[in-house]
Every structure is written in C-alpha cells, then in structure tokens.
C-alpha cells in the first residue's frame, strides 16, 4: 500500500466509520477457558482465557506464528480436522462446552460461521448459488431466497456490483469481490458468531473499508471475532482486543486483553506497547 492510499484509508476512516465505542459488556456469548493446543508434539497455544461478550467485535492481534489463526479455528471445531491436532481446556458457547462428546460439530459450525483469509467461493456454483450454498449444504430451510441474496450481498457491500449478473460463475469475480461474496455466504445461514481470519489481507483499501463498515453494521446482531495484522483496522472495528505473543520457543499465549481503547491507548505491558506501535512483530 502506498502512503497516499494509506492516508486515504485513514481519512475515509474518520469520515466513514464512526470511532468505535466500547459496548457495555453484555452477557458472554463465547468463552475459551484455559485452552491449550498442540500440533503433534508441538504446543502452539497455552492457557488462553478470553471471553467474547454478545454482539461485540473482538480483534485478535499479534505477530505471525503466535497462534491467532489456530485459536480462531478451535472456536468452530475446524482445528480438529488437521491430522495430529490436540486440545485441552474448553470452549464455551452459550454456556456449554462445544467439545462435549454429545455436541455435533456440524451444528456448532452452523451457528459459528467463518470467513477465511483467502477467498474460497465454490467454483462450480454461480454467485447466487454461492450465497445460498450454506442453506443447501447445511440442509437449512429458509424460503425467501431472493430476499436473502439481496440482503446478505448488500450487507457484504457487493450487491450493487453483482445484482445484474447473479447467474455468473463466482470465479469471474475479482479477489476483493470474491471475499465479500464469501462473507455474504457466511451471513446467509444467520450465524450467531462470525469468525474472520484476516478477511481483508487480500483486499484493496476500498474493499477493506466496505468490509469494515459491514463488520460494524453486523455487530448489532452478531458476535464477531476477527484476526488482523492491521493495527488501524483493529482500532477501527473492534470493541475489545486480545494481544497474542509466542516468545522464542514458548507456545503462544495472551499477553494482554481488554477494551480496544485501553490496549492501544494505555497498554499495561511494555510488549503490547511496543507491538501496537510497530516496534516489533
């Protein structure tokens, strides 16, 4: 990103997106308790305790390789699909452990949606088909398909660009459009929690801004957990922030967490201060 573009974004930020205010901490929607994660013999996360209040946005920040993405994938049970994966501790969703033997992971993933770093629309489906794919794949029954398509694509900031070609292949869209399409796809199944793993890392500043607006809008109804490498983005979109760090040879852990304004404005830890000011990581 050039300096000019960057300033553009910051400028737009001030005009377009209202400065994030801390929502009053409501009831907790999700919570990780003493969560540790392994890949084979290697421990990658240790003792993570984070609570995600309902209908807020929480940003997970930290340098590459500190376990943010791994953590977010434990929250909808995608982590277990990796061979050699192991986990200790618990993840509570609406007060119940999602790793309980009686819980069906398919049911969990239906309520806890996810948007990935790389856009992954289904190439064999049309734009419209992609938006509705969640309903078909999960066997969920919702009638007003046209409304869902318009609603979710509008929420993802893509409607105006694709409304005349909903029958085109999803692969014909640009990378940024594809990413907004998969956000719409995730919204169509009406998840209660939306996990976003660096959703804007492949997008241009304008698309990024649209998605950030979308995130702010969604936060009224959905609990959002977003991994980001972009400090400004964390400030712009999140109510709470958790700073992850994996110091030499040790598994990743949470160094500091709290209201975003506190983490960026008045961090308690020297390492947090250094990281949010770009001095390492």
């Amino acid at each position: 990103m050039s300096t000019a573009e960057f300033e553009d974004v910051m400028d737009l930020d001030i005009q377009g997106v209202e400065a994030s205010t801390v929502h009053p901490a409501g009831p907790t929607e999700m919570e990780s308790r003493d969560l540790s994660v392994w890949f084979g013999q290697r421990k990658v996360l240790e003792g993570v305790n984070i609570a995600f209040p309902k209908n807020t946005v929480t940003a997970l920040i930290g340098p590459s390789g500190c376990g943010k993405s791994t953590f977010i994938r434990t929250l909808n049970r995608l982590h277990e699909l990796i061979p050699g994966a192991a986990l200790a501790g618990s993840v509570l969703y609406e007060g119940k452990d999602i790793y309980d033997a009686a819980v069906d992971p398919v049911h969990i993933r239906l309520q806890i949606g996810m948007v990935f770093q790389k856009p992954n629309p289904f190439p064999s489906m049309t734009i419209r088909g992609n938006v509705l794919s969640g309903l078909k794949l999960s066997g969920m029954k919702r009638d007003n398909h046209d409304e869902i398509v318009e609603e979710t694509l509008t929420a993802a900031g893509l409607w105006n660009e694709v409304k005349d070609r909903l029958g085109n292949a999803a692969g014909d869209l640009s990378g940024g459009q594809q990413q907004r399409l998969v956000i719409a796809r995730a919204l169509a199944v009406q998840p209660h929690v939306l996990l976003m793993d660096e959703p804007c890392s492949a997008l241009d500043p304008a698309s990024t801004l649209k998605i950030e607006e979308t995130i702010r809008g969604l936060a009224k109804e959905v609990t959002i957990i977003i991994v980001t490498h972009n400090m400004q983005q964390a400030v712009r979109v999140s109510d709470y922030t958790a700073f992850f760090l994996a110091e030499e040879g040790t598994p990743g852990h949470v160094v500091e967490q709290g209201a975003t304004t506190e983490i960026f404005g008045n961090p308690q830890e020297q390492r947090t201060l250094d990281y949010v000011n770009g001095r390492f990581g």
Partner: protein
Amino acid sequence: MSTTTFNPATSVQLEQQKSMRPWRKKPTKFTMAVTLAVVIPALIVAALYLTSDIPVPILLVVIYLPLQLIASGIAAWATKGTRGVADSVIIVNAIGASLFTVIVLVSVIGSLIVRGFRALSPHFLFQNSVYISPSTPLDYGGIGHSLVGTLLIVFIASLISVPIGIATAVYITEVRGRAVPYVRFFVQAMSGVPSVVAGLFILTIVVATGVFNQSAFAGGLAYAILMLPTVARTAEEVLKLVPDDLRTGALALGSTRARTVLRVVIPAARTGIITAVILGVARVIGETAPLLLAAGNNDQTVVNPFGSPISSVPTYIFNNVALPYPDAVSRAWGAALVLIILVAILFTLARVIGRGRVGR
C-alpha cells in the same frame, strides 16, 4: 477456457503487433547462425539419401540427429558462448523426441487409412455379418453388429466401474479411513492384471458356473475389472487437486462431510472426473482377449445384454485379420479405422460435455 477462432481480420492486427514485440528482434549474426545450423545438416542428409542406400530410419537417427546436435551446438557456442551449448542440446533432443512421437502416431493412423479405407462405406457401418463369408466381396456386409456390441459392452463396464472407481477415490481422498494404504495398494495391484486374466476370471466365475452366458454383460464385467483401477487412480489424483480451502469452507458453513463431497468437491473436480472416465474407456475399448472369453462372437446384431454371445469391434478385427482373403483383411483394417474414429468421437463428446461453464 475461452476458444478464439482464427479470424482473418485479426491477422492485420497481428502484423501490427509484431512490431510491438521487441523481444522477437534478433541480431543478424544470430539469425545466420541458426539458419546455417538448420540448413547444413539437412543438406548433408538429403545428399546421403540420394546417393547411398542407407535406410531412412538409420539415416535420421544415426546420422541426422548427431549432425543436428553438433551444428546447433556450434551455432549456440558462436552466438551465446559455452552456456548456450547445453541449451541447444536440450532443445534439439526435445524437438527430436516430440517429432518421433508425432511420426509414430501419424504412421499408425496412416497405415490404418491406407489399408482400411477401401472397406469403408455406409453399409459397412450399418450391416452385420449374417450370410457373409470371408470371401464375400466388400460390397456386402459390415460391422454394425460389432459397433453395437462394443458400445453396449463399454456402456455396461462404465456403469459398473465409474461409480465404484469414484467411490474408491472419495474413500482415499475424502474419507481418509485407516484402510487407505491397503485400498491404494490393491487398486495399484489391480491395474497390473493382464486383460486375458480378467477375461478368464469372468469366464470361470460367471460363464462356466452358468450364471450368465457369454454375453455383453459378462464382457462388460471383464472390461469393468480393467477399467476400475484407471478410473479410481485418475479420480483420486483430480480430487487431490481440489483445494482444501473449499472443503473447510463448506464445513464452516455447517455442511456434513457427505454434502461437502457431493456438492462442493466433486463438482469442483468435474472436468477431471470426466477425464478419468475417458481414460478408463480408452484403457479397455481395444482389449480383445477378455471379450473373446467372456462375450464370445456372433454374426448377428444383438441388443439384449444378457441373452447370447455378442460381437465387438476388437473380436471382429481378431477374427478377420489373419484370414487368407484380401477382402476379409480389408474389413479388419476398416474396423480398426472405425474403432479409432469412434474413440475420437467419444473423447470429443466427453470434452464438450465437460466444458460446460457455470452460469449463463
């Protein structure tokens, strides 16, 4: 994939574009060196061809190829220095090897046309061999009954082996159960089964025990044994190419594994799976031994897959090609030509079906 047809109007544009391709410009020294390196060996070989009795293949492989290597090596050395020599050796060998492949293919098709074209006619495609003896002139009789037989047998074999083959591939790549190494081993071992063994197997298990006669169905079973490993292994390869992002993406939407495979993974690999089927058909369509044993032979047109022995193009060729009657031999070559054309048509059809794009 977009198909652009050649349009004379664009050739003007092409001419204009040429001047816009600065990387195409070469120094005169380079052009001269390349021209000399191409012309001199060709002249020497042409002179030898006219003046001596050296057979053409030997002339090409033993004299022309080394000469061309040396000439190109010298030309490369003169223009690019020592580091150009290795390049020229690889390029000359690559061109030589690909030419060799093309020549083999063209000569196979060429000899089929030369020997078989005489037999071709509309009635050759539609009539059967009832009342036809080996000495009957080419004005009568045909391979209609064999074509029907081959299509029927291949269809039955596909009906059996394609679903099983894809299911095997899905087990290996998607289910990833504990038996994967064993399944893969057996599929691999199965692809080594000689076709005559497949025929014998069906003959003893199905035909000799009286379950079915020699028939299209029994022939299809023998073909299916041969098709299965090809379909399974190719389908496995193409399913492996489907990015994991799509699988996790579908699972993250609350999809079950079965729905993920059926609605996302297999559709994404559709073209590749059609290729797997094509390769399977190509593997078996010319096999003779299994059909001699399991399907038998017949001069009449048979459409009932279970009732009676049935003719097929490979067995028709086998039965006619060694007869001491020139017309029978011509029929065999004609049938071989038709078989190749049939394969080409089937492949083109499969490609056209497979190309279908998503959306309008």
